[in-house]
């Protein structure tokens, strides 16, 4: 598999180098590289989708479609040392299409009702308490920043560029999200 460094050990620019290597293999038609790539960054892609949609089912579909798009367009990727930015851009486009599709298919009244009840709609989807609370208590912006920074290791400056938001917004939302989660974690500890 991934020779000297295993996926769990490598981080940062080393991981970027391996992702690019795997994309290069995929561009040559090597399907086996897909498995390796999923092992390396599957959680990153899934976490971002989940942070945007808060729906396990939708996130699985988006994750699947993102990797298929990577496969289809592997030969179009120009190595620049930042493959995750390319991958997340693909994913953001797919999420937008998914959201538009959902909006068109769901009647307006039902959409409003879903929004009002959004606090509980993940109840039956996510089994992990902490993850469920995170998806419920954080705003979409806060969730996506948390997932990009903590799961994927992107710097705040990179997140600001990817999401097209001011750096100060990214920093303040991240800080607020962390505080909320720290408070929740503390309450959880105290209630045990």
């Amino acid at each position: 598999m991934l020779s000297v460094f295993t996926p769990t050990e490598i981080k940062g620019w080393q991981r970027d180098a391996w992702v690019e290597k795997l994309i290069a293999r995929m561009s040559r038609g090597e399907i086996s590289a897909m498995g390796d790539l999923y092992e390396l960054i599957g959680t990153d892609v899934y976490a971002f989708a989940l942070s945007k949609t808060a729906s396990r089912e939708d996130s699985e579909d988006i994750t699947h479609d993102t990797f298929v798009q990577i496969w289809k367009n592997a030969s179009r990727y120009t190595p620049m040392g930042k493959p995750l930015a390319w991958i997340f851009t693909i994913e953001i486009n797919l999420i937008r299409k998914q959201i538009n599709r959902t909006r068109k298919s769901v009647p307006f009244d039902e959409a409003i009702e879903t929004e009002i009840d959004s606090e509980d709609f993940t109840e039956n989807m996510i089994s992990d308490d902490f993850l469920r609370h995170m998806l419920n208590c954080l705003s979409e912006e806060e969730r996506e920043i948390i997932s990009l920074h903590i799961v994927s290791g992107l710097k705040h400056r990179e997140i600001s560029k990817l999401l097209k938001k001011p750096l100060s917004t990214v920093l303040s939302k991240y800080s607020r999200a962390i505080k909320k989660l720290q408070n929740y974690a503390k309450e959880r500890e105290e209630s045990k």
Partner: protein
Amino acid sequence: MKKRTLKKMIFDSFKADTPDLRCSLMDSCEKEPQESAPQISMDFPIVNRCVNFRIVFNRATAVIAGIAILLFGIFIGNYMYRDTVTSADPTTETVVYFDVNPSVELRMDEKNEVVECLAGNDDAKVVLAGLKLEGVDMNTALTAIVGSMYVNGYLAEYSNSILISVETNDNEKTAVLLNDITAKINTVFEKSDMECSIIAQSVKVDENLKQRAEEKGISVGKMHFLDKMAKGFGGLSEDAINKLSELSIRDLNLIYLQKYDGEENSSEDLISGTVNVAISADEAKNAVIEEMGKASDDVECYRTFFLPSRNGESKVVYVVVIMFYDDPSVYKYEVDCQTGEVVSMHRDG
């Protein structure tokens, strides 16, 4: 709850919830045709920014003689100075840590005169032998230390990186000092036609940093730099940090500079100068091609970067990751930065 614990909890939660889509993805990929693309070169950018090769010394010998005279003068002058001046004990206002691999600690008072000069390791004792720097002004002390490191072979063509760490209670003073020290050292090197790479950083020393530095047998300045490297690379294991702590500042510099290749340097450090390497990244790649009995035209894509050697030696090597046309395997080679010798190989796929 500590932030690190919280971050781990967040990461673990997402990871545990991630479905395994590998099988369905493989099935889908088999059915989906790939988009054909214009033939774009798959050469990876060579990661060797700020690297200079084979500096030739023209006037070094003359400068060495000049510095040796200066050192002698300081030794004698300071001896006479200490006989005639009486003063109360000055308070340490600033501490400057020099790391090349000798580690020297300079403690200075509010007038930037040396109060105490300490050797952080055995190599530093060699550097400071015969030097009496107490009571000397900062610029003179700097020149003496740099000169002594040069004369004793610790600063040389392929060992030309210095880490300067400044600790004060005044942030403004720190910034000014970092600039002044860097400028002074650059001036010393300019006269010798020798290139030098300087990393200048501010440091706040607490008990935790001191203890960790002591455990690893390095200066607090170097420990602080390693912490920043670990943070910059998204976190490193304790084993990785231990391995890095054994490297010289030149080797750490080569690894660290890769982070900023092609992007804005967002670090608060002052990084200046060029790091010398005997073998270029291109030469390392060519050594690998030759080792494999291939030609340059056979190379589909490659990438080079610096990493600590995995052969138990405390030095960096080039890691060349390379793929060839008509060969699905990915090859990974280690190449010695000084000799260009191919050290080891691993094949993936």
